[in-house]
C-alpha cells in the first residue's frame, strides 16, 4: 500500500513548488515587475518606439543633416520668393522642400527635434524640480504633523491652489511677459505651469505614504525620521510623479508651440524648434500648408508617444492592478 512511485511524488512536489516561488530566481522588485507589465502592453511599445526614434533623431540627427538648418540657400539661389508666394516643395535635393526663408525643411525638422526635446525636457525638469520641492516640503511638513508642519503645509498649498486657479496659459504669459521672450523664458513659463500639478501630486502621495503601516513599522524599528522619509516615503511616492513627468513632457512640447503661436515663443527662429516652425509657417498656410503640417504632425506624434508611454506606465505602476 505504501508503494510510492517516484514519478508521482515528484509531480506533487513539482506542483507544490509551482505555486510557490522557485529558489533559483532572484526576487522581482516592483519596478522590474512594472517594466515587465509595460513590455506586454502594445500601447507602451508604440509609445516607446516613437520616443526612441525621436530621441535618436534628436541626439544624432543633427550630425547627419544635408544642409545647415539656418542657411537660407533658397534665397541665395533665388528660388524661394516667399514674398511672392513662391516656396518650392519637396524635391530630390530638398526632401521636404524649402521654408519661407529658403532653408532646407528636412534639416530643420531634424535639428528641431533636438531643440524640441530640449525645451520639453528642461521645462518638465523645471516644473518637476520646483513642484517636487514645494510638494516635498509640504508633504513632509504635513506628514510630520504638529502645528508648524500643518501651517507650512497649508500655506504652501494655498499658494499652489492659487497657481492652479490661473489658467496655464495666463501663467505662462505672465512669466514670459516678466522675463521677456527667449528660449529660456519659454522653458521657464512652460515649467511653471506644471509646478502645481507636481506639487500636489507629490504632497498627496507623500501624505498617503506617511500614513501607511510600513512607515509606522519603520518608526517602531527606531529608524530616524529623515531616513524614513528618504528610504520609504519618497521612493514610494515617486511612481505617480514619474508618470506625470512623462505626460507633462507631452504637454510641454504642445505648450511651447502655443506660446510661439501667441508670439511669446523663442523669437530667434534661426534656432529651429518645431513650435517655432509651426508658428512661423502660419503666414504661408495658404501657399505651402505642408510647412505647418510637418512640425504639427511631428509635435502630435511625439506628444502621442509620451502620452502613450505615460499612460501605460500609469497602468503598470498602479497598485490597484498589481496582483
Amino acid at each position, binding site marked *: 500500500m505504501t508503494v510510492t512511485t517516484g514519478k508521482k511524488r515528484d509531480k506533487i512536489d513539482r506542483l507544490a513548488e509551482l505555486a510557490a516561488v522557485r529558489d533559483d530566481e532572484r526576487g522581482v522588485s516592483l519596478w522590474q515587475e512594472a517594466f515587465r507589465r509595460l513590455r506586454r502592453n502594445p500601447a507602451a511599445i508604440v509609445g516607446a518606439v516613437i520616443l526612441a526614434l525621436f530621441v535618436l533623431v534628436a541626439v544624432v540627427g543633427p550630425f547627419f543633416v544635408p544642409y545647415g538648418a539656418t542657411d537660407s540657400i533658397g534665397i541665395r539661389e533665388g528660388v524661394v520668393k516667399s514674398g511672392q508666394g513662391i516656396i518650392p516643395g519637396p524635391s530630390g535635393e530638398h526632401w521636404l522642400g524649402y521654408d519661407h526663408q529658403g532653408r532646407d525643411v528636412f534639416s530643420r525638422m531634424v535639428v528641431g527635434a533636438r531643440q524640441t526635446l530640449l525645451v520639453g525636457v528642461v521645462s518638465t525638469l523645471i516644473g518637476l524640480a520646483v513642484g517636487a520641492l514645494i510638494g516635498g516640503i509640504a508633504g513632509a511638513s504635513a506628514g510630520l504633523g504638529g502645528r508648524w508642519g500643518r501651517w507650512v503645509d497649508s500655506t504652501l498649498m494655498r499658494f499652489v491652489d*492659487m497657481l492652479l486657479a*490661473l489658467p496655464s496659459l495666463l501663467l505662462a504669459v505672465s512669466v514670459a511677459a516678466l522675463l521677456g521672450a527667449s528660449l529660456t523664458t519659454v522653458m521657464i513659463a512652460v515649467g511653471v505651469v506644471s509646478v502645481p500639478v507636481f506639487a500636489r501630486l507629490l504632497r498627496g502621495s507623500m501624505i498617503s505614504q506617511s500614513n501607511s503601516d510600513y512607515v509606522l513599522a519603520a518608526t517602531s524599528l527606531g529608524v530616524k525620521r529623515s531616513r524614513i522619509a528618504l528610504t520609504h516615503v519618497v521612493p514610494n511616492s515617486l511612481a505617480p510623479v514619474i508618470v506625470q513627468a512623462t505626460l507633462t513632457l507631452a504637454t510641454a512640447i504642445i505648450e511651447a508651440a502655443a506660446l510661439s503661436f501667441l508670439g*511669446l515663443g523663442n523669437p530667434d527662429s534661426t534656432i529651429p524648434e518645431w513650435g517655432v516652425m509651426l508658428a512661423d509657417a502660419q503666414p504661408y498656410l495658404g501657399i505651402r500648408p505642408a510647412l505647418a503640417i510637418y512640425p504639427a504632425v511631428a509635435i502630435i506624434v511625439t506628444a502621442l508617444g509620451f502620452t502613450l508611454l505615460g499612460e501605460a506606465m500609469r497602468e503598470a505602476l498602479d497598485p490597484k492592478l498589481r496582483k
Partner: protein
Amino acid sequence: MFRFIVRRLLQLIPTLFGLSILLFIWLRRLPGGPETAILGERGTPEMRAAIRRNLGLDEPILVQYGRFIRRMIRLDLGTSTSTKREVTTEFLQRFPGTVELTVMAMIIAIGVGIPLGYLAARRRGRLLDHLSVGGSLIGICIPVFFLAYMLKAIFAENLGWFPSSGRQDPTIEATRITNFFVLDGLMTREWDAAADALWHLVLPGLALASIPLAIIVRITRASVLEVLGEDFVRTAEAKGLTENVVRRRHVLRNAMLPVATSIGLLAGGLLSGAVLTETVFAFSGIGAFVAESISQRDYPVLMGFILIIAVVYVLVNLIVDLSYSLIDPRVRVR
C-alpha cells in the same frame, strides 16, 4: 449647504489676496515700470516723472499696495493701454462672447464626451472603445490652435459649411440687449440672428471642445468601468432591476462624480483655450482681446483678466462642487 458656500467664498479671499500681491509685484516689475505701460513710446523723462507722481509711485510700497487693493475692490481695473477704454467696460462687452463659446464647447464636450465615454466603457475592447480611446489621445495631443486652423480650413474655407470668423453675420441687423447673441436673438424673437450666432459658434466650439471632450471621454470611460465593477451595481442587478434602471440610476449617476470634478477643473483651461481659439476664429471675446493685449503688452487688461479668471475659476468650481453635492449626498453633510 449655506456654510459650505460661505466657506468656499471665504476661501476665495486668500487666493485673491495672494494673487493681488503677485499682480502688484508683477505690475511693478514690468520692463520700464507702469509708467511705460501707460505712456507708451511717446514718453519723455519729465512726463514719466509726472506720471510716477500722479500714480503715487514715489510713496512707500505699502501705501501703494493699499491703494492698489482699494482699486481692485472697487473693481477698478484701470484703463486698457491699447484701446484707451476702461478694462471693466471692455470685459463686459466681450465676456458674453466668451461665455457663449465656452458654454458651447462644454455642451459639445459633455454632450458628446459622456455618452461616448459611457459607450466605450460598455463596449470595452471593441472597435468603438478603441476608436474613442485613440481619438481622445489624439485630441489631447493636438495643439488647439492647429486644430482650429484645420477645422477652419476644411469646413469653412473649402467646404464652406460654416462661417470662418466672428460671432454673427454683420449683415444681419440684430438687436443687442445682453450681448449674448444667441440669447438676444431668442429674446427679441429674431430667430435668424440667434440661429446665425449659434452657427458661428460651431467651429470654434468644436476646436475649444477638443481637450475637454477628450478628457471627459477618458474620465467617463474609466469611471463607468470602475462603477460597473462596484458592489452596489451588483446589488442592483441582484434586485432584478431592469438594465435601464441599473444604468441610469446606479451606474451613470455614480460615474458622474469624477466627471463633475474634472469639468470644474477644465473650466479654467477653457479660458486659456479661448485665447487661442478666439484668435484663430476672430471671435470677439475676452480670449481674443487678451491675445491682442499680449502682443500689445496691455498690462492692465492682462492683470484684470487674471483676476477675473481666478474669480471665475473659483466660482465655477463652487458651482461644480454644489452640483457635486447634489449628486453625492456624502458631501452634503459638511
